[in-house]
Structure formats: C-alpha cells, structure tokens
C-alpha cells in the first residue's frame, strides 16, 4: 500500500465522512431524547409484517427496537453504504474519468498498490462513520434512559463497519474493473438496496427464503447485534467478501487500459 496515496484519498473524503458521523450522532441524540416522550404511543402502531421486517422488526415500543429500526436498519447502513460506494467509485473510476489517475500512475507506484491505498482510505471512512454510530448510540441510549449494553452497541457498530467494508469493496471492484464511475456506483447501490429488500421480504415467502443468503444485509443484520451481540459468522463473511473484492479490484485494474 502507498502511504501518500492513502493520505490524499482519505483527505479528499474526510469532510464527508466526518459530516456523516456527526449527522448520525445528532440523529441518535434526537431518538434518545424523543423516546421517553413518544415511545409508548409509537410502540402501539400496527406496522405490516413485511415493512416491519425491513425496519428490523418495527418494534418502536422499546429503546432497543427503536434504535434497531432507526439506526441499525435504516440510517446506519444507508449512510455507511452511500459513503463507501460513492467514495470507492470516486477515488478510482472518478479519478480515472477526471484524468488525474493517468498523472498519478506516471509516477513509480503500481496500480495494485494504488488501489490498495484507496481501499484502505475507504475503510477508514467506514470506520469513522461506524465510530460516529457507536458514540451516538451510547449518548442516545443514555439520553433515552438506558437499556442497551455497551457490548451490544459495540457489536452493532462492528457489524455496521463490516457491512460498509463489503459495500465499499463491491463498488471498488466494479469501478476498478470498468473505470466508469456512474455505472459502478449505480450497480453497487442497486445491489445494496436489493440486498436490503431481499433480506426483508424473502423470508416471508417460504420457497424464496433462501435468497436472503445472497444478501450482504443478511450477514450484517440477520442476527440482531443489539440483543444477541456480535455475529462472528456474519462478520467473517462480510470481511472475507471485502477482502476478496478488493483483491479482484487490484487484479482487474492491472490488466486493462486506462480510459482517460
């Protein structure tokens, strides 16, 4: 990995990562502050089963259920996947389309080392957002009267980070293989959204329930970290996928022509 390339890639993405982390902290502070006042009434909502599954159970009557739905099932994965995917595509295919990559690769650095540095920078972005989620949830839960252990909050943040690694690595592999920012971003985002929908709806139809195993989201949220702690199997699958996709990205960019 190239340390200068890592630093510059992270520097370019740092404002967005920090903003996202601060935003997630703010949302969780709001959830924690609102829960004591509205938890009882919202908890009585009758949410359809499919929608409830998409929302991580849709249990708004407990602080654990509310954080699982709001943060664990929606804001957390949405924000972390969005920044990982857009960041991975911008730092590789985006720089290629903008013709910066051609100049950088005229310097003594191999393409795989450059891609590895960019993957590490996206990994750091993911960790910043996961850390924001972790800190925000600790503060939000405390504000809401407690009820989720530090270990379980840490487990969610860890699994969220692994989900971000996998989403970012998928985008990186697509961007490195094609050199095209928009298609790579679109396909990676589509896979992430489809995975979220499959994980929510497939188990409702017995014959299609197996589809959930094809979803990144299942390995992130299939076992609830806020009540069951870290899912080592899911973490290993996500980290393994992230590593595999990163290696694919490094190999594919080495073999092809730069487009611009």
């Amino acid at each position, binding site marked *: 990995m*190239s*340390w*200068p*390339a890592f*630093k*510059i890639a992270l*520097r*370019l993405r740092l404002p967005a990562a920090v903003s996202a982390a601060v935003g997630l902290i703010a949302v969780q502070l709001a959830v924690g502050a609102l829960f004591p006042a509205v938890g009882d009434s919202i908890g009585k909502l009758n949410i359809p089963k499919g929608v409830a599954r998409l929302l991580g159970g849709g249990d708004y009557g407990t602080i654990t259920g509310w954080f699982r739905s709001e943060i664990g099932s929606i804001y957390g994965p949405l924000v972390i996947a969005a920044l990982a995917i857009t960041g991975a595509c911008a730092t590789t295919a985006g720089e290629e389309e*903008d*013709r*910066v990559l*051609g*100049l*950088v*690769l*005229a*310097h*003594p*650095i*191999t393409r795989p080392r450059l891609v590895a540095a960019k993957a590490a920078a996206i990994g750091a972005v993911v960790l910043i957002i996961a850390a924001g989620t972790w800190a925000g949830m600790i503060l939000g839960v405390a504000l809401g009267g407690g009820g989720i252990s530090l270990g379980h909050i840490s487990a969610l943040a860890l699994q969220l980070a692994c989900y971000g690694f996998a989403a970012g690595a998928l985008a990186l592999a697509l961007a490195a293989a094609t050199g095209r920012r928009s298609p790579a971003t679109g396909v990676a985002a589509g896979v992430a959204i489809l995975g979220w929908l499959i994980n929510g709806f497939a188990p409702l139809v017995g014959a299609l329930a197996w589809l959930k195993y094809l979803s990144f989201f299942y390995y992130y949220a299939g076992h609830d970290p806020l009540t069951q702690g870290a899912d080592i199997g899911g973490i290993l699958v996500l980290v393994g996928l992230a590593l595999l996709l990163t290696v694919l990205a490094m190999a594919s960019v080495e073999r092809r*022509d*730069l487009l611009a």
Partner: protein
Amino acid sequence: MSAPPAIATSRLSKDYGSGRGLFELDLEVRQGEVFGFLGPNGAGKSTTMRLLMGLIKPTSGSAQILGLEIGNESLAIRRRLGFLPGDLALYPKLTGRVNLDYLAELRGGVDPRVRDSLIERFDADLGRPVRELSTGNRQKLGLIQAFMHEPELLILDEPIAGLDPLVQQSFHALLGEVSAQGRTVFLSSHTLSEVERVTHRVAILRRGRLVVVDSIENLRAVALQHLEIEFDEPVGAQEFRGLHGVTDVKADGRTVTVTFEGSADAVVKAAAAHQVRAIRPREADLEDVFLRYYRPERPV
C-alpha cells in the same frame, strides 16, 4: 558499450478499430536530444505517449525506454522519467502546493532546491485550489511536477498549451538547459514554431503512422517553398500553373506568389519571360513541411 536509446519502439501498435490508433511505429530517440513529435489531433501522438508510460497496453509490437521494456519494467522506467499528459488534470479541490507535495511523495521525495527553483522560474501560484487556476497556471504546475525530480527522460504532451509567451520563453530556456545536461526530451505538439525552435529532430505522424523522421534542416530542404515575384506589369497566374513542382499560385496586380516544391528552376525561367522587378523568397518553416506531408494526394 554505448548508451541505449532513450526511446526505441519496434512495430509498436495500438489498434482502436476503424483506422484509429497507432500502427507499426518504429522510432528511435537518442539520449540527450530534444525530439519533436508532430501531428494533428488524432494522429496518434498521445496514444504513443500513453503506451510509453504504460497507461495503455500495445496491441502488438514492443518498446524500450532507457533500455528497459515498457511492459514488465514499467516501474523502473517511471522512476527515471517525468511525464506531462496532454489535457493535464490535478486534484481540483487541493492547492497547487498539496498536489506537488503528493506527487513528490510518490517519488519518495524530491530535492526542494530544484522544486523551488522551478516554482520561481515559472512564477507558479501554489496557494490556491487548482480549480481556481487558469489553464496556463495549471500547466505550470504540470511542468514543475514533470521536471522537479530531474528525470533522465521527459515525455511532454503539448507542453506549452495555455502558457503565455513569457512563460514559453522560460520553458524553452529550461529545455535548453536540460538538453545541455545530456537529458532527453520527447515532446509532442501541433504548434510548429515551438518544435522548430527547440528540437534537434522531429517525427511527423499521420493517421497513426509515422511519415518521416529527420532534422529540422533536412525537412526544411524538402518543404514547400514560396517565391513572391514582382513584375513591371500585371502577369496572369495561369503562366505558372502546371509548371513542374508548382502547387499554388496567387496573382495580385503586378505581384505573383508561387508555392512549389523541389527546384525553383521552372518558376524562375517562366518569370524571366517578363520584366522582373524583384524576387523575394520566403524561408520555409515547419508549417510548410507539415503541409507537404499532409497533402491528401501524397502517399504515406
């Protein structure tokens, strides 16, 4: 043992289909020379440079830079050369200084005295984000990054694009110094005056194929020439049309301008049939060389 050529290509090709690309380029650039690479847009100049830099891979053929194969010794090559891409792009949100720092770090550092002298020479603005800089000021940064590690070989794609005349002078002086130090410059251009002033030899590329490689002097010798002939009384252009070597004739009152290639004998003899007041030759420049090699009827 003599030093290997700075650049040597053998049937180097990149076929993009539909006749686009580079075809069977055989070229040798000697160490220490400033070599011009001429051709209009789309002729294959940038493709050649991107092949040499390893940014794209050849369809067939091979190339060596400083005795090293471009395919499997690309990293060692890139340590020893500086590159300015055509249509240069840098990180737009970052300042010129941060961009240069980054590129220097990728090389493991550069001598700050060399870098600072280049910054001073080009009067470069390093404090503003690149997106706020004019094309010329961005090009200055591109030149600084290409020269700041004192490479043995410089590959420069349209280096004076956007530079004002004063900076162009500084750049030409720098090329002279680099050449005097025995370093090699391979530069492309469609600005013929630039190439004429600074290069030892030039190659002309047309539709992806090499047309000619020669010294400026030899190319001038075969260039289209012009004679402006002033007569005592008006003479018609038709008297010169069709003469051996004549390609164009313009008549304006008592003055006839004849463009021709090769010997002036037929033109002078035709003029001698009238009272001639003056004959004014115009020295051939590379524009004339260029036109000669690009005339559509001329076979490649």
